[in-house]
């Protein structure tokens, strides 16, 4: 990573078409850590992520969104969504090298190949997305994200469409490869939050709460007792907001 990872903060309220989406709240995302933002659908988790990404044009946001180093976030953020967003007409290599081409620059193909190796797709670099499994496609999307080499990574339920085994593998891989970056993971899965969060926040209709994460560094073992207990607590909290 060529730039130091900043911490992020958002404080303010958001409205869509005049209707309040979430009230005044404050969210801090620690530098170089995974912050999991857990919540049910429709409470504005994704909006928060889109605000950090500079994408939420449809939202009236009053408040501040900032990085602790005072520099703008533009150009320091990479985004990975539930849909892999691979282009069907490009092979894996073309998709991974996409960012530079979209900026009108010459892509570093050797580096793109190294990223493809790192996500374990070296034998699939010349395949088009339709020839890949769901897990392989998300690996390609992860390689594309790594290729961007941004200090801030925004993950919008990137693993939620995968089967349980593939999801666990992708979680391990993402933690390993996104080490030391500032990661905000939006998820509706308490198990994922319990496995991956250095910090865990719950966003519900009543507001934003902080919950203490289980002990141990992410990715925590799937059968770790404390992690499973945390998962249970998170689900309980989701079902009956304080």
């Amino acid at each position, binding site marked *: 990573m060529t730039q130091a990872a900043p911490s992020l903060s958002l404080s303010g309220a958001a409205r869509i078409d005049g209707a309040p989406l979430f009230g005044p709240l404050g969210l801090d995302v620690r530098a170089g850590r995974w912050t999991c933002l857990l919540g049910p659908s429709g409470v504005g988790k994704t909006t928060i992520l889109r605000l950090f990404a500079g*994408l939420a044009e449809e939202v009236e946001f009053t408040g501040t969104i900032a990085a602790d180093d005072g520099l703008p976030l533009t150009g320091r953020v990479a985004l990975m969504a539930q849909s892999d967003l691979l282009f069907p007409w490009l092979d894996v290599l073309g998709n991974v090298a996409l960012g530079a081409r979209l*900026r009108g620059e010459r892509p570093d193909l050797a580096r793109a190949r190294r990223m493809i190796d790192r996500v374990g797709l070296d034998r699939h670099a010349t395949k088009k997305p339709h020839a890949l499994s769901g897990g392989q496609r998300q690996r390609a999307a992860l390689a594309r994200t790594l290729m961007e080499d941004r200090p801030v990574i925004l993950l919008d339920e990137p693993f939620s469409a995968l089967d349980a085994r593939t999801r666990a593998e992708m979680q391990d891989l993402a933690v390993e490869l996104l080490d030391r970056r500032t990661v905000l993971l939006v998820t509706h899965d308490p198990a994922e939050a319990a496995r991956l969060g250095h910090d865990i926040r719950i966003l519900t209709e009543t507001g934003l709460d902080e919950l203490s994460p289980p002990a141990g560094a992410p990715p925590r073992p799937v059968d770790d007792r404390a992690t499973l207990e945390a998962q249970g607590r998170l689900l309980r909290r989701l079902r009956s907001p304080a």
Partner: protein
Amino acid sequence: MIRGALTLAAVVLMGLALWQGIVSATGLPHFILPGPARVAEAVWTHRALIAENAVVTVSEVMIGLVLGALLGAATAIWLAASPLARPLLRPMLVFSQAIPVFALAPVLTLWFGYGLGSKIAMALLIIYFPVTSSFFDGLMRTPQGWLDMAHVMRATPTQVMWRIRIPAALPSLASGLRLAAVYAPIGAIIGEWVGASRGLGYLMLLANGRAKIDLMFAALIVLAVFTLLLHAGVDRAAAWLLRRHRG
């Protein structure tokens, strides 16, 4: 492939049988509706004349098709790229469609003369709108996720157009082109009817005027076969394009 050819042969045979059946059953005189055999004979007897005129019509259609497709695609890209041009140009496009292209044929003949020019202009005009409109719709329906990702990657608008929006809209362009393949011959023939000295449309009028109804039907059949082949060819090309596109 073989099955397709057999189906085609069966359809053609059925059509011919129906045609002959109507001729035999109604007893229509051959100067009203000649039978298939008589028309086939006319195609063979007048093969040089028909070929000479077919070359003219085919050139008009092909040139009009290529130019109309290029112009339509360019307009669509321009409209999609420029939010400024859109409110100005779209009403003009729609208005231009309110004028039946057929009504323009005499004007085009006046402006471009009796030669190829006015027929190419007709074919071009008649396909311009379907190509523009379907490609433009495709260009405006780029999945938002791709555009968001491009925005986060700080893509330039030009690169977004060439690397995302245009490739993503190719299926829409292909359906526009399929329509164009059917429309373009209509434009050329109308142009020839209004004023021409060569072409299949001209030959049909000429044959009709001289009561050579079998020749008129021969020209019509050749025109229909050409239009079918053109449609099949564009269909193949579009399918090939989409296969490459999907990988």
